[in-house]
């Protein structure tokens, strides 16, 4: 047993070195920028970030060496546990920054909505691998099975998270769910179209239950310069930070926008602007390419997996990874409304890192178990 473990770790580093290295690059960059934004001191955020990464890196290796069957078997259980936790957050969670998102586990606090993202993917993957490709069912039932049930799996967590209120996570949960459904389905385009129309119908409903500040963000997105010191302040300052960086940047630790506190959330959601101010266009490209590389590696793993569950899980997780990076960077450079989403592995924050290290662990696990067949699939 021990021998096998050692072998798989070796195998892991041999076959997925690129992905693991990319993750380390992002974490190192993150630590460097926690150092830069915390007044050039290692105590506090940079140390915490580095230690967290080390701990969670081990977790990732452990998960990578676990059995894919375990995740398949426990997918639904996890789903309902997390759903219960999400509901519990609404009741007993404590409030931070105006929203009830965190739950106190006495050792540390976590955001169940973050972990929910993985769990939804696993649950959907399990669902689709379970129902297989039976085509002979009457159409109403087929619709029920193929569309309504998966949508409900996504819808409940989405609603709870939206009411927390956490618009960013809710949107991400919805998107992850929808994209997973799309890659799972046979005629994706048709379903995609039906989902789009469903979204359009739901828009007025979503708008009506959105909070005032959420509405403001959407309005601000379309015209940020109108209120440079109000709700548009974030994006205006972020663009100044990026633009003033130029090609080579102002140099490490030399950024004025972040150092002089003009840039808000400089170590969390807007860390990309901080980095691009100091390291310039070059630094920005490196980050974007690193994320793209992780995505490509993940997609390769999904493609090679023999089991339907593995394919869908890996695909869904990669989509989640890409979506996060895209939304965060897009928000920082002003092409997407401001939603509170951190840049995973680089931004400061435990829940986000826990989620993504777990998710990448599962992807690596699928990569190692690509030949494993799971009962009921394929």
């Amino acid at each position: 047993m021990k021998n096998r473990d050692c072998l798989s770790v070796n195998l892991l580093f041999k076959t997925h070195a690129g992905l693991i290295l990319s993750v380390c690059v992002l974490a190192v960059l993150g630590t460097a920028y926690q150092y830069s934004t915390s007044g050039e001191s290692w105590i506090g955020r940079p140390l915490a970030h580095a230690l967290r990464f080390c701990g969670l890196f081990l977790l990732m290796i452990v998960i990578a060496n676990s059995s894919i069957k375990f995740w398949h078997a426990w997918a639904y259980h996890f789903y309902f546990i997390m759903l219960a936790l999400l509901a519990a957050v609404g009741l007993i969670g404590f409030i931070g920054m105006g929203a009830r998102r965190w739950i106190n586990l006495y050792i540390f606090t976590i955001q169940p909505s973050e972990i929910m993202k993985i769990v939804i993917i696993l649950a959907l993957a399990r669902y689709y691998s379970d129902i297989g490709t039976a085509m002979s069912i009457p159409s109403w039932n087929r619709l029920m099975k193929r569309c309504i049930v998966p949508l409900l799996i996504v819808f409940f967590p989405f609603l709870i998270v939206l009411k927390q209120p956490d618009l960013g996570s809710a949107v991400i949960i919805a998107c992850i769910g929808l994209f997973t459904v799309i890659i799972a389905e046979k005629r994706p385009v048709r379903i995609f179209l039906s989902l789009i129309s469903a979204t359009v119908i739901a828009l007025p409903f979503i708008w009506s239950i959105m909070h005032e500040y959420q509405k403001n963000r959407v309005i601000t997105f379309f015209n940020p310069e109108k209120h440079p010191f109000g709700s548009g302040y974030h994006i205006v300052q972020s663009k100044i930070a990026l633009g003033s960086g130029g090609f080579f940047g102002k140099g490490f630790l030399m950024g004025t926008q972040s150092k002089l506190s003009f840039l808000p959330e400089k170590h969390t959601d807007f860390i990309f602007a901080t980095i691009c101010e100091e390291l310039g266009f070059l630094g920005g490209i490196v980050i974007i390419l690193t994320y793209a590389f992780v995505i490509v590696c993940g997609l390769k793993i999904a493609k090679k997996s023999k089991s339907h569950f593995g394919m869908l899980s890996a695909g869904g997780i990669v989509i989640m990874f890409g979506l996060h990076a895209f939304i965060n960077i897009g928000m920082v450079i002003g092409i997407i409304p401001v939603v509170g989403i951190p840049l995973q592995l680089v931004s400061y924050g435990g829940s986000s890192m826990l989620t993504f290290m777990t998710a990448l662990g599962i992807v690596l696990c699928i990569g190692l178990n690509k030949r494993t067949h799971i009962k009921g699939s394929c």
Partner: protein
Amino acid sequence: MPRRKPSFQNRIRTVAYITILLFGVLVGRLYYLQIIQHEHYTLLSNKNRIRVRPIIPGRGQILASDGTPLAFTKVKYRLMGDSSVKKNLIADIKAFLSDVQYRNSMQASLLEKAKKTSPIGNIVIKDEMTWDQVNSCLCLLNRYKSFYVEPCYYRAYPLKEAACHVVGYLSSASDSITLPSEYKCGKTGIEQYFNTELSGEFGMKKMEVNAFNAPLRDLCDYEAEGGKNIETTIDVGLQNFVFDLLSEYKAASCVVMNIRNGHILAMVSVPGYDPNRLTSDKKYWRLMAGSPVNSLINRSIAGLYPPGSTFKPIVALAALKAGVIDKNTKFFCPGHMQLGNRTFHCWKRRGHGYLNLEQALAFSCDVFFYNLGLRLKPSDITEMAETFGIGIKTKVNVPYEQPGRLTLKQGIAAQKILTAIGQGAIISTPIRLCVMAAQLANGGYAVYPTLEKNRTSSRQSLGISSEHINLVKRGMFLVCNMPGASAYAQGHSIQYPMAGKTGTAQVVSLSNKRGHLWRYKDHGLFIAYVPAEQPEYAIAVVVEHGVSGASSCVPVVRKVFDYISRNEKPRLPKC
């Protein structure tokens, strides 16, 4: 099963393409922001972090002719509270208030202010402290860490009311948005006229600030260059003396000038104001601005009066030049003159009898000058008046000077007659009358009045026959030295004989005396120069509603010349 696999892989490929597309969008946008728009955002970034603060230069002094300051900048100190750490400041203020007795209302407002300020808006704890008070405060500074002492600058005017109009005062440059609010600029008088020289050059301090506008470090400094001192011609003693003399009147003004170089030794306007209080004391400002006799107006240069009989020498010169009269021409004064159905009275109802020009000037006979006015063309009078500058600004170094006016119309005999005695179509300022006296005194040479000590003017003839002017000067000498003449009572037997011309300008007509209200009384005027033979000093005095020039102004002039002869003996040749 074999069919589904490729289709799933196709979907994965689609996902990859979409990823490339979306990340391509990110890169494109990043390129746009960081490469194409780089300069624009660099500018914005610098605008964010760099603050330029002007350094206000020290203002120059205004000095009297002997070097005594008429206006200077005084340093006072104030106790300030540093509000960068607000909690500390509030605690310090509370402790300070319990230690030091303060009025209750002040306590509340101080705390209120401390709570409201921004991290850079430091607050004043105690204003206007002398150095001794600062010393007693030094021990406080150790106890209250957020307090500090800061110098602040006040403009002081030691002559107060006596020289207020000529020196002027300072106030915030309210009309300029580019200048800092602490910068004060001259609002009138020399302070305004020489504002550029007195102000000096602004310095500049470039600082890096953070998002809370708190300065972090200096980027560069450009030192301010202090303003120059302005040396004026004002004689402090004389200015004070004249002001004291005029203070007994409700409204009056006086200009004393050195004839040789146009230097103004004293320029007084009554009532005055205290420039030390004017801008700092709102109540006082309202009182002054709303005073019925217009305290803020500099009457010496902006007060317009009909010159009355002081204009007669000009009319005499015009008549001599036009050949209407000569030295010996006599007119009979019966006490009045009939023109059409109107009677024009002489000031002496009984009449002067037969008079020549010298006598007419000496007794200030109106009928004699009615006759001249009747015989002269309007252009004769206006040309001569213009030669002496009536209706033109003297361009003395004080702002807001009024030019005065002389507009004679063709063919209105009554207007000509009245103008010949300095009423009707003519008004002038005291400084213009003084210059007129000086130009008569020096035998018809141009005099340019100035307050600048280092300015000299060239000697330039006005083109008047010296014979004529000597005749008029003889008449003006008689005014003060012939028994029975208008200024004889006060003007004779002075150490240096003086020459001059009294004037009384009617405010309402004789037939329309409405009681003896102050505001309906005649204005008194007197122009004079001394010594009569080799004139050195010229003076013009106007006392508003002073009844007559002889009674109100001549005593003033007499005392002024006495003062000058007492104090400037070496410069006056003995007669």
